[in-house]
């Protein structure tokens, strides 16, 4: 069953075509990776999906509902939210308050607090719940960001490089969490630079390059795609000679 259907999504920033006719769909319960070189349009794609950036053309259908013109908070209440690549916590608030605020989308303050504590449990940060968010290390902040997104009870969650700056053990924990979320019925769209991680955890991978969708397929298939290899590594010497 399709939960997210994206058709011909385009967005231009001045002279840069950040997204160009991007079309794909995601099934319920899938984990889909989004990869591509720097500046390929991955973050713009996420921003356009949740309504932070308004697309010039194209449609986004979430669970049968057209998201055209909706603001991010409405998209969140319909069940789609994202994390921020550079981590956008409320730095002066406590960790708990960061997550609790997201819980208010569906609960009153007391229920939101309980919900927030259980989300912090999931990412293993309950012990720092009362610390100020700005005092945490970068990997911890990324996990708070994840807990905060979870606390909106999303149907589909867009993770923008939550594993950046994590060590191997931490990365393994997050990957385990991603799989556990799928077990709970959450669909995930994941932007990540770490290839091994993404190949390992994703059912399917989308490759973006210069705002275009270059490939869409199973990890092994995408990894062997000559176009994808070219986008990442440039043309092979053999090919260039020809």
């Amino acid at each position, binding site marked *: 069953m399709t939960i997210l259907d994206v058709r011909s999504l385009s967005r231009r920033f001045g002279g840069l075509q950040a997204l160009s006719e991007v079309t794909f769909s995601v099934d319920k319960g899938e984990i889909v990776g989004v990869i591509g070189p720097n500046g390929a349009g991955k973050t713009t794609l996420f921003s356009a999906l949740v309504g932070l950036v308004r697309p010039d053309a194209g449609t986004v259908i979430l669970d049968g509902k057209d998201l055209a013109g909706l603001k991010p*908070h409405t998209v969140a209440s319909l069940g789609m*939210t994202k994390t921020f690549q550079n981590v956008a916590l409320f*730095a*002066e608030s406590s960790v708990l308050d960061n997550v*609790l*605020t997201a819980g*208010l989308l569906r609960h*009153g*303050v007391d229920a939101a607090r309980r919900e927030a504590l259980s989300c912090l449990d999931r990412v293993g940060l309950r012990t720092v719940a009362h610390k100020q968010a700005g005092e945490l290390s970068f990997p911890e902040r990324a996990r708070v960001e994840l807990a905060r997104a979870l606390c909106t009870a999303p149907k589909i969650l867009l993770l923008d490089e939550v594993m950046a700056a994590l060590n191997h053990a931490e990365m393994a924990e997050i990957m385990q969490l991603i799989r556990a979320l799928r077990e709970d019925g959450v669909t995930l769209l994941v932007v990540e630079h770490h290839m091994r991680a993404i190949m390992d955890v994703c059912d399917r991978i989308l490759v973006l390059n210069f705002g275009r969708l270059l490939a869409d397929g199973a990890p092994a298939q995408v990894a062997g795609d000559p176009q994808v290899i070219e986008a990442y590594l440039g043309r092979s010497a053999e090919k260039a000679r020809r």
Partner: protein
Amino acid sequence: MKRCLALAVVIAAVALLPLLLDSRGYWIRVLTFTLLFAAMAQAWNIVGGLANQTSLGHAAFFGIGAYTSTVLLLKFGISPWLGMLAGGALGGVAALVIAIPTMRLQGHYFALATLAFGEVMRVIANVWTSLTGGPGGLSVPFVPPSFSAYSFKLLRPHAYIALAALIVVTVVFEMIRRGAMGYRLRAIKQNTAAAEVIGVDTTRVKLQAAVISGALIAMLGTLYAQVAVFFDPDTVFGVASISIRIALIAIIGGVGTAAGPILGAFFIIPLEEIMNDLLSSRAAGLSQLVFGIILISVILWQPRGFIVVLGSWRARLARAVAT
């Protein structure tokens, strides 16, 4: 529990003050205005503290409240209590009207836009002579003293009404701060995009805060008119006399906290009076000069307000009790 007890003691102490002061005298008047300005700064604190939008135009709503109740009393004989509700409603509407175009602005731009709005209201009040009496101002007519007519022979009841108003506004502020709206406002203040993405309707929350704050300030405008008995556009719509003064009170006391505006008012309003009393006969402008120097020193000493000093005293006291 301890906090409640401390709070009860403070309220009781302030409630006793009007009984100790000469009810025809000067100091009960200072106390009344101190309580009123504390309430105003507290209402400002909803927008200026929780949403962190430094409004310099709150005189607009204050003046609307003062004029609404007084004009209704003069023209139709309507009790100022009802006039206060009408003024509150109008103040809320005015706050909504100004908030819609300005809420996307931040920092200095927001301050300047609201400042301009306050000035527009002052100019309107000065030229719309048929309604406001123009620059000549309005006198609140004398009616036989009674509570329902909001008319009293002495200042004591005014002091208690101002105290009640301060308590009400402070309770509203605390309920907002601790409730869902407080969390949402703090989120918006720190990162609007992130707040939106996790489901905060940032536009609506900002508008709600602006309307509540504007309506409360307008209602306090009525209380001011009833105590002052006479006012003109330059006082109730004044930038320095109202807009900046209430922002200053909240800032010097501690922005975003319930105690801040109260501490600030009890410092600034009596200090101004004392300076005027001591120095205004010596040299023109000397009292303002000294007042200014004191304010600058305080801000340099405690940029985050008196609330910080209060916090460190409490910590020291706790340590002293513990040992």
